[in-house]
C-alpha cells in the first residue's frame, strides 16, 4: 500500500463574504514531514490552518485530512489532531497540570492515563516544576510551551502550529524551536505557519510561500533559494544617495539588482566578485555586506515585498 498523504487539498477556497482569504490552493503533506506555510500577515495561512484543523469549512475545493472529509468526519478528524492556536486559549484559573488533564478528557482519555500523560508532557516542555502553579503568572514562552504540550495530549497524528513563536523573546523562541525539533526527530508530522524565515528554514522540510491567498512557490528551503535566488546577496548602502538613483550605474552587476527604500540588494553567484565590480565602477557605498541568500530574498523576489511588515 502506498503511503497516502495525511493532508490533501485541491483547489481549496475560503471566502468570507466578498473577501477571498484562500484562493484555490493545492497541498499534500506526507507522514513524518515538517511542513510550513510562509507568508506575510493576511496571506491566508491562518485560514488554511483553520480549515485543516476542521474548525472552518472550505467554501470550495477538495480537502481530505487523514483520508477523511472534514465536512462529514470533522469530529473524528479533530480527535486525531493536535492544535496550537495563534492566540493562547489556556484556562487561566486552572493549574498547569489541570490544563492538560481537563483537555485530555475532551478526547475521552481516561483520568489515570491523562494524569500520566500530563506528567510526561510537562517534562518534555520543561514545565514539570510549575505543574501545580496557575497559568496566569507564566511567561509568554511558558504558556506557549504549555499550549504545545496540550496539543500533544491525545498523541495526535498531526500537530498544527499557527505562528508558534510570534511575540516571544529570542531565548523563548530558541527553546521552543529546540522542542519542536525534538518532536520532528521523533517522527511527528508538523504543520506550521510563520512569517519568520529563520523559523521556516530551521524547522521545515518543505514549505509553501503564500501571498494574497495563493501559493506562489513551494519546495524545500534550500531548493526555493536555489530556484528563486542566487547563492549570495550583497547589501549596499549609499549614505545620502537614494538607492533608485544608483540603480542605473549597477547595470550588469550580478544577476539582478533590487532597490529597497534604504539599500540595494545585488544577487550574485559570487558576492566578493560583485563587490569588486561595484568598486571598479567608481562607486563608493557607505557599507557593504556579503551574505548567503535566505528565504526572505526568495519572498522579495516573488512578491516584490519584504516578509515582515
Amino acid at each position, binding site marked *: 500500500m502506498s503511503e497516502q498523504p495525511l493532508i490533501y487539498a485541491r483547489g481549496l477556497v475560503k471566502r*468570507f463574504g466578498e473577501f477571498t482569504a484562500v484562493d484555490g490552493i493545492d497541498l499534500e503533506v506526507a507522514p513524518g514531514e515538517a511542513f510550513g506555510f510562509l507568508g506575510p500577515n493576511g496571506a491566508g495561512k491562518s485560514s488554511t490552518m*483553520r480549515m485543516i*484543523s476542521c*474548525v*472552518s*469549512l472550505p467554501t470550495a475545493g477538495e480537502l481530505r485530512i487523514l483520508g477523511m472529509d472534514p465536512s462529514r468526519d470533522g*469530529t*473524528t478528524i*479533530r*480527535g486525531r*489532531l493536535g*492544535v496550537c*492556536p495563534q*492566540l493562547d*486559549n*489556556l*484556562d*487561566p*484559573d*486552572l493549574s498547569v497540570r*489541570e490544563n492538560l488533564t*481537563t*483537555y485530555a*478528557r*475532551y*478526547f*475521552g482519555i481516561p483520568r489515570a492515563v491523562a494524569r500520566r500523560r500530563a506528567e510526561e508532557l510537562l517534562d518534555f516542555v520543561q514545565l514539570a516544576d510549575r505543574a501545580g502553579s496557575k497559568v496566569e503568572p507564566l511567561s509568554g514562552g511558558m504558556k506557549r510551551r504549555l499550549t504545545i504540550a496540550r496539543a500533544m495530549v*491525545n498523541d495526535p497524528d498531526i500537530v498544527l502550529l499557527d505562528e508558534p513563536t510570534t511575540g516571544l523573546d529570542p531565548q523563548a523562541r530558541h527553546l521552543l524551536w529546540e522542542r519542536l525539533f525534538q518532536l520532528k526527530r521523533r517522527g511527528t508530522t508538523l504543520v506550521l505557519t510563520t512569517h519568520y524565515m529563520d523559523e521556516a528554514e530551521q524547522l521545515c522540510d518543505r514549505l509553501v510561500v503564500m501571498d494574497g491567498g495563493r501559493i506562489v512557490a513551494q519546495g524545500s528551503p534550500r531548493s526555493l533559494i536555489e530556484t528563486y535566488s542566487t547563492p549570495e546577496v550583497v547589501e549596499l548602502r549609499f549614505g545620502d544617495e537614494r538607492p533608485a538613483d544608483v540603480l542605473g550605474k549597477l547595470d550588469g552587476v550580478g544577476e539582478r539588482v533590487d532597490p529597497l527604500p534604504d539599500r540595494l540588494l545585488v544577487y550574485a553567484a559570487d558576492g566578493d566578485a560583485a563587490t569588486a565590480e561595484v568598486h571598479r565602477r567608481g562607486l563608493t557605498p557607505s557599507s557593504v555586506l556579503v551574505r548567503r541568500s535566505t528565504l526572505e530574498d526568495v519572498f522579495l523576489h516573488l512578491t516584490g515585498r519584504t516578509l515582515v511588515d
Partner: protein
Amino acid sequence: MAPLTTQVTARSTLAVLERNLTLYRRLWRASVFSSFVLPVLFLVGIGLGVGSHVGAIAGVDYVSWIVPGVLASTAFQLAVGESTYFVLSDFRWVRAYHAMRATPVQPADMVCGWLLYVLFRAEIAVVVFLAVTALFGALRSPWALVTPLVCGLVTLAAAAPTMAFSASIDHDSYFALLFRFVLIPSTLFTGVFFPVEQLPVVVRPLAYLSPLWHGVELERAATLGTTPPWPVAAHLGYLLVFTGAGVAWAVHAFRKRLQD
C-alpha cells in the same frame, strides 16, 4: 441541520462538566455561602419583616406563602447569573470554547455541559435553602420533596436562553439590559412576593410567559399541599417547551459564534 440528539455525546458533555467542576472547586466555599445567605436574607427581611404587616394570603401566613416563591426564584436567579459573564468570558477572553472546538467536543456538548453544571449549582442552593425553611416550619406538605425537581426545570428553562443571549453578544454592557428588563421584573412580578392576580389584567400574560411564574405556582402547590392555578401538566409542559427551545437556541448561538 442534524437533529440535536446526534450532536451530543455523553462522553464529551461530561468532559465539559468536569472542566466546569474543576474550576468550581477553587471557589465553592464563597459561592455556597452566598447562594445560601441571599435567600435567607429575603426570607427574614421580607417574610418576617414585611410579613408582620401583611398578615395572611389565602389563609396562609406570609412566610409560608413566599417560601416556595423564593425557592424558585433562587434557582432562577442563579441560573441567569451563572450563564452570563462566565459564558461570555469563555468566548471572548478565556476562549475556552475555541479550545474545545479544536477537539471532538461539539457546540451541543458545550451547552449541555454548562447546563449540567448550573443545574448542579442550583440544586445545592435549593436543597440547603429547603433545609433552612423546614426549620421555619414553612413546609406544610410532603409534596415539598419534589420542589428540587421543579427547581431543576426552572434552572434549565432560565439558563438555556440566557446562555444563548450571552453567546450572541460582544460586550458585557448588554447584561445590564438583561438584569433590568428580565431578571428583576421576573423576580418582582411573577408571584414570588404577591399573587399575580393583583397585577392589572393587561400585564398578567407577561407573568404567564415567564418560566419563573410556572415554577413558583408548582412549588407553592407542593409546599402548601394545594392545587396550582393551571393543571400541573400545563405548567410542566410550558417549562419543558421553554427549556427545549432555549437549548436549541443556545446550541445555534454557540455554533454560529464558533463557525466561520
